């Protein structure tokens, strides 16, 4: 096995980045407009579209702060501006200090201290422009594929997902783990019914027990709402696309992980420590799951879809793969890979898996995905408690 390489940015902390973004991070919804103004005015700045930060439980607040910090310190981020209001629960100075512990420069602006939205935005624009300019002096150098962390996601699934796009992504996942990259399977609520597969795939009985306990806890939580799971998993679009039950969806979903053993079980947003395939406990909601994968350090998210989902992420390229030839034709603007060629008999699973691998290395070197070219930057973070 040859060690594949790609041209990436080696950061002062030794991690590797594939993009040079400046992140504008509001600490609450009331600071969102000033943050939007900064991101809109500076080429190279991206908005982290967070709008809670107040009136949530202490636990949700502390977790959100950790995940926002992870975005600010992501290796694709070369600088950040934290924008607070001043009276919110999620202390912007504390968030800014945590982000600033990373190698990249970070500034914190608080609207009530700066004299309003306009002056905050003007100062933020000046900071962001300086940070963007530092990126112009950064150069790519050869990096091993083992430096990459890859998130696996599926959304808007239909019957082709389990037959074509997900097993092709599984072939891709095996190519990545063979290079000792870190690959993250996720979406706990979409695995109900695939426990026997996951148990077989776990690297040890202890990993299997943790994985099954995570799925059991998810099912118990869903039942505790008093609502039927039907209508959420599978979603109405999944059902129209031919998926009848969550078990059927799960057996198709789990194929994204390929055939390598699952070596670890991660909490939402936690980075994987081991090379190979890890599982992260994220919800089936695509925006929230992708944000968890990115907070955990994913450089690229590979996203399979049957019905056609256009979403992206502010700091990480999202590669769209559809197994449905009709969807590829309908949504060419949004789809990067046509795994529908498997259904029409024109390509094998292994060929499409290799195509995704080759594309992911080009994307790692700077080629824009369709979602990036359209500035898709959706952001939604996990919250389990109420809003007060």
């Amino acid at each position, binding site marked *: 096995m040859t060690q594949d390489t790609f041209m990436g940015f080696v950061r002062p902390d030794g991690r590797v980045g594939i993009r040079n973004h400046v992140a504008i991070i509001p600490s609450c919804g009331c600071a969102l407009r000033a943050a939007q103004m900064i991101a809109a005015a500076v080429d190279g700045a991206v908005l982290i579209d967070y709008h809670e930060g107040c009136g949530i439980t202490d636990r949700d607040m502390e977790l959100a702060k950790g995940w926002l910090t992870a975005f600010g310190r992501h290796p694709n981020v070369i600088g950040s501006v934290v924008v607070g209001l001043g009276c919110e629960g999620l202390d912007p100075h504390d968030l800014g200090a945590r982000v600033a512990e990373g190698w990249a420069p970070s500034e914190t602006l608080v609207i009530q201290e700066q004299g309003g939205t306009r002056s905050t935005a003007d100062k933020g624009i000046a900071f962001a422009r300086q940070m963007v300019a530092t990126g112009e002096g950064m150069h790519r150098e050869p990096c091993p594929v083992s430096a990459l962390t890859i998130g696996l996601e599926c959304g808007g699934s*239909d*019957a*082709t997902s*389990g*037959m074509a796009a997900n097993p092709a992504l599984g072939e891709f996942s095996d190519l990545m783990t063979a290079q000792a990259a870190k690959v993250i399977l996720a979406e706990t609520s979409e695995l*109900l*019914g*695939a426990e*026997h*597969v996951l148990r077989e795939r776990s690297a040890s009985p202890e990993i299997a027990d943790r994985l099954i306990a995570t799925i059991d806890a998810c*099912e118990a939580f*869903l*039942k505790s*709402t*008093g*609502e*039927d*799971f*039907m209508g959420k*998993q599978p979603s109405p679009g999944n*059902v129209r*696309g*031919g998926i*009848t*039950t*969550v*078990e*059927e969806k799960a*057996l*198709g979903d789990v194929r994204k992980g390929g055939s390598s053993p699952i070596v670890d079980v991660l909490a939402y947003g936690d980075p994987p420590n081991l090379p190979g395939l890890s599982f992260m406990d994220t919800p089936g909601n695509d925006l929230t799951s992708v944000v968890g994968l990115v907070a955990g350090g994913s450089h690229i998210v590979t996203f399979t879809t*049957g019905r056609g989902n256009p979403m992206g992420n502010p700091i990480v390229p999202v590669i769209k793969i559809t197994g*449905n030839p*009709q969807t590829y034709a309908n949504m060419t603007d949004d789809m990067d890979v046509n795994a529908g060629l498997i*259904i029409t008999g024109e390509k094998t699973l292994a060929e499409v898996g290799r195509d995704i691998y080759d594309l992911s290395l080009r994307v790692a070197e700077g080629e824009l995905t369709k979602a990036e070219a359209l500035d898709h930057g959706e952001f939604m973070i996990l919250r389990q408690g109420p809003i007060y």
Partner: protein
Amino acid sequence: MRNALKLHADDTVVTMIADVAAGEQVTWEEGLPGVEALDAVPFGHKVAVEAMAAGSRVIKYGASIGRAIEPIVVGRHVHTHNLKSVRGAAKG
């Protein structure tokens, strides 16, 4: 020419990769007769290739995807009207 995929030898259903009208043939392996569709079944949806009693498991990917809630004869469209999850229900 095949118009359906059977994903595992143990499966009691196949998945259509083209729309099929009632009375048309469902074929998942070249050279084998397949089964006659009793309903119009769209792309991506399932057709029974084995008879299933009410309460029996419906098998796809070689594993249970839920239980038949009424008797299902060969050629029948298998979906929410005759197949139900055994997971995640609030009651029962």
